[in-house]
């Protein structure tokens, strides 16, 4: 079949999907006592995978919405199943985020994972391969294989290396996701049959389906994606999973895994069911606004550090879905950027929590206080990510939230205005958290702890750099999105062209 060649001189996508898998197998052959070797090998692998993914950033053609770095081979011909991978302007950013985040996960787990070290790093690398596969798949069957494959190692990471209540959290995570996935599978099969036995996502995304079919399929896919995002009211697995997961698990969940729900809306729901999406935009925006406010208010009541940040994710992802279902360019680009931002900032916050948890072994906010005096460098970095989380201009969070609110406000004044109150609540719970952890007199339980180590600093540094990079020069990332987002908009809003200004001015004319 067609092979479009490799801009970087090698099959980038297959390399970064399978290199971690091969490394995981290799680690499986190492004796389990050799934990040092296992860790070094994992680190080298994650660095190599990241290095191998950098050409995606450099050689990407930002002028087209087409799939790039495409590899396309027939896989199971009787069923028209292909091994077909490629990236467009949306997925490429999440592939890069994935390869970066795994390095940080290896580093942050270096000393904190002491049990079953071998299995832990194997699981981590398997997740990496699977999640990159999810973002790269252009074949629906392939996509589903990766989507499900990711679930198992993630389930194990929560269930084996998690906190005291890990089993409950792991099973809850598994069941929620599975129920959603099964409905999506039904949807995929329906599409496959409707299209004359075809799994090609690009083909499926350019077909015309009857409205009733679109509606059914929209909700089938919604089940899978809304759970992953997670959208209100199917979010309750997230606080448990986040809270019980080990640091690396929380980081992967926050940074990459829950992005897959929103990614699913963008890749499948909107282009395949444009009429249903348009019809359902309002309910989706309402759910998003509820998530923003509700998630924020719940944060005010949390006494557990990780649980608070988990609920803040519900609120932040509400912004993301609001932007996406605003169905205009600003909202959607803001939403996608905010997916990236949330991955960076919340990922970094979970890394921060892991760093302090390794010292105190407590997640209770009341066990902290005065940490700025004891760990000043750590306090500074935590402050930076806090500010990014509350969307201060100059940080990445601002650019995303601003575009989302602009898009949301354009689509629906009330939705935009109510969502904007989220920035007040956000400042409230985050600054209150910061005060309880870092300000006031030093909690005796914190005395004598050392400030962050070089390893921990290196783990946070890339995230800190990204906060400013996107904050001051978002074009470096937004420019990837323009053609791909425009293509989705053209599909969903064929008449309006998605130009916010024109839409609005028409209202006043």
């Amino acid at each position, binding site marked *: 079949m067609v092979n479009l060649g490799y801009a970087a001189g090698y099959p980038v996508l297959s390399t970064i999907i399978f290199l971690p*898998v091969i490394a995981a*197998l290799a680690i*499986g052959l190492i004796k389990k006592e050799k934990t040092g070797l296992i860790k070094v090998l994992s680190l080298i692998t994650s660095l190599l995978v990241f290095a191998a993914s950098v050409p995606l950033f450099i050689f990407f053609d930002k002028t087209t919405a087409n799939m790039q770095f495409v590899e396309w*081979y*027939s896989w*199971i011909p009787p069923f028209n199943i292909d*091994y077909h991978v490629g990236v467009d302007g949306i997925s490429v950013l999440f592939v890069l985020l994935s390869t970066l985040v795994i390095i940080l996960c290896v580093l942050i787990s270096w000393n904190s994972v002491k049990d*079953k070290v071998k*299995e832990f790093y194997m*699981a981590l690398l*398997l997740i990496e*391969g699977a999640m990159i596969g999810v973002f790269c798949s252009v074949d629906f069957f392939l996509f589903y294989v990766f989507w499900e494959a990711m679930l*198992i*190692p993630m389930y*194990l990471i929560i269930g084996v290396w998690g906190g005291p209540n890990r*089993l409950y959290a792991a*099973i809850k995570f598994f*069941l*929620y996701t599975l129920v959603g996935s099964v409905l999506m599978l039904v949807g995929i099969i329906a599409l496959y049959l409707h299209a004359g036995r075809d799994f090609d996502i690009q083909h499926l995304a350019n077909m015309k389906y009857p409205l009733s079919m679109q509606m059914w399929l929209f909700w089938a896919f919604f089940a899978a994606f809304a759970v992953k995002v997670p959208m209100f*009211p*199917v979010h309750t697995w997230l606080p448990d999973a986040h809270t019980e997961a080990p640091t690396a698990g929380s980081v992967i969940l926050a940074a990459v895994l829950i992005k897959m729900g929103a990614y699913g809306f963008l890749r499948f729901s909107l282009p395949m069911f444009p009429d249903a999406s348009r019809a359902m935009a309002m309910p989706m925006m309402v759910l998003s606004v509820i998530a923003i406010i509700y998630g924020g*208010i*719940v944060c*005010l009541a949390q006494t557990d550090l990780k649980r608070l940040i988990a609920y803040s994710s519900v609120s932040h992802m509400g912004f993301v879905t609001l932007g996406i279902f605003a169905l205009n*360019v*600003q909202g959607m*680009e803001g939403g996608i950027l905010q997916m990236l931002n949330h991955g960076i900032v919340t990922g970094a916050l979970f890394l921060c929590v892991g760093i302090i948890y390794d010292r105190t072994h407590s997640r209770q906010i009341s066990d902290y206080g*005065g940490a700025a*005096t004891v760990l*000043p460098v750590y306090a500074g970095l935590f402050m930076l990510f806090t*500010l990014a989380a509350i969307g*201060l*201009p*100059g940080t990445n969070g*601002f650019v995303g939230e*601003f*575009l989302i*609110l*602009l898009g949301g*406000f*354009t689509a629906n004044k009330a939705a935009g205005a109510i969502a*904007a109150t989220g*920035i*007040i609540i956000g*400042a*409230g719970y985050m*600054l209150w958290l910061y*005060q309880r952890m870092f*300000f006031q007199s*030093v909690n005796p339980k914190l005395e004598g702890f050392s400030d962050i180590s070089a390893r921990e600093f290196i783990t946070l540094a890339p995230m800190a750099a990204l906060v400013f990079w996107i904050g001051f*020069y*978002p*074009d470096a990332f*937004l420019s990837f999105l*323009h053609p791909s987002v425009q293509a989705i908009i053209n599909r969903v809003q064929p008449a309006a062209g998605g*130009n916010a*200004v*024109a839409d609005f*001015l028409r209202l*006043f004319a």
Partner: protein
Amino acid sequence: MDHLYLLIPALPLLGFIINITLGRGLIKDKAHLVAIPAVFLSWAAAMYTVAQVAGGTIVSRDFYTWIVSGGFSVSAGFLIDQLTAVMLVVVTTVSLLVHIYSTGYMRGDKGFYRFFAYLNLFTFSMLMLIMSNNFLQLYFGWEAVGLCSYFLIGFWYEKKSAADAGKKAFIVNRFGDFGFGLGVFMIFLTFGTLHYGPVFQSAPGVLAGKTVMLFGQSVPLATLISLLLFCGAVGKSAQLPLHVWLPDAMEGPTPVSALIHAATMVTAGVFMVARCNPIFSLSPLAMAVVGLTGAVTALFAATIALVQNDIKRIIAYSTISQLGYMFLACGVGAYGAGIFHLYTHAFFKALLFLGAGSVMHSMQGELDVQKMGGLKKYMPVTYWTFLAASLSISGIPGFAGFFSKDEILWKAYSAGGIGTLLWVLGTLAALLTAFYSFRLFFLAFHGKFRGGHELEHHLHESPKSMTMPLTILGMGAVAAGWVGLPPFIGNALGVSNTFGAFLAPVFGNITESAASGEIMITGISVAVALLGILIAAYMYVWKPGAATALKEKLPAVHKVLWNKYYVDELYNFIIVKPAFWTARNFIAGTSDGKVIEGVVNGVPRAIDSFGRKLRKLQTGMLQDYAAIMAFCIFAFIAAALVFWKTMGG
């Protein structure tokens, strides 16, 4: 030299970066040697740029494209016109003096480097705010100064009250910013751009006659946009009803109060309204709201200041009150007068705060004016400069505050209509201003020392690094007003209102002629000022028991004023407590805990039974996990093999 203006914000930013990264380990107590040169050079570049502007060179250019998305595009860029020039003078001058003062005031503090880093960051942010050429960069500066304010109010973060105050300032401001942000959205959606030039130029044409439906009411678009923007100003400039954060902000070190919470940041709201005058001027309703908010706040805050005993809080309420005058001016279209008062206020109010800091320095941190007294003989420089500032704020002829306040009151009076009401409120507030300023002055510097023998031994004048800025600001408090002479004086001397003429390109040319009424209005202003000072002298110098007697005669009034009209308590009751109550009892407890988990899906129950079964599997035995993982790996291998085969075939 074309791009010299870039140094104005860049140097303080550089100073911040150096001190925040190297301060703790390397620079330590030498941080001022980085921070002060940075601000000094920034000041020098600003002065050069201001001279260029005076010579007619307006800078207006985009620097780079910040955010692009669809039809939305905004740049980082600079606009340096006459209005920005005035702000540049105020910000860089006061900042420089406060930096110098802080070397003495903050000496020995363990956060010395951090303090200077934040001061530099603040200076950078404030400069970005005033030099911006578009609304989004304005918003950047707006939030960044708020952040610095948060850092500096909570500078002594180990004190709970300081940490609380910083957080309160930030969150209360976010309430205002919420409206401001919506205003920015409305501007973009209406004009298709956020850049000042096109927005202001096309505002009269685009907004004319346009209305929007809001809650079933037809509202002129200009009014809606103006009022939304004004929300931001109400927060940042601590006007009613969002004034509550500013008195608490006094938890910060005193130089911070002088720089951020008196001279610069809190005036950003006034600056913003003045900058947006082409929009505000299109809406009589919005103008009335601005003017009334200002006038009522001016009077309201002045009444609270009458009875307070904390030296910094008295000055803080005085700041809220004076900011009210500036909005009063904007509300009657006298933007130039508002900016003039902003400019003179920066000198005398920074001076009052730095003077208060000097007193606190001598008094070992004591804030209660009832425990002071007779400081005149120990602290001559502080005494004389404080007197100059008090005369200035009271509006005694010849001092800076007189010219600007007089111009505001006259403009209000001559505007007619609602202006007359604003004039009455403003004049009443002027009476109270003179009284509370001199109450503070007499209690602190005259009479007998009431702080005990122990403390009296320590009383001393502050070091040179602190008295020097006091002296310079003192000169400003006396002379800064002479650039804006009222016509009836100016005409006699043959000079025009240079300040007004300088700003004319921004606010339009307001023809000034000597009106007969103006002398009368000035006379009334001067009379109430003198009256206020005389009453203060009577109650606190000549008849020291009078104040207590009055307090006993009107206990209810005193109680209400002493408790600041219970506004904090009200907010606590209607916003803070319900929010937390809802979060704890309703949402987190019932809704998320029971309703959603229980009703929306039966999953939790299923989990319980499923979990019990699985628990047998999950015995912690390595084999079990290995088996599942092996399955996972197997899936991959199978996929890879089939893939391989397909390729081969």
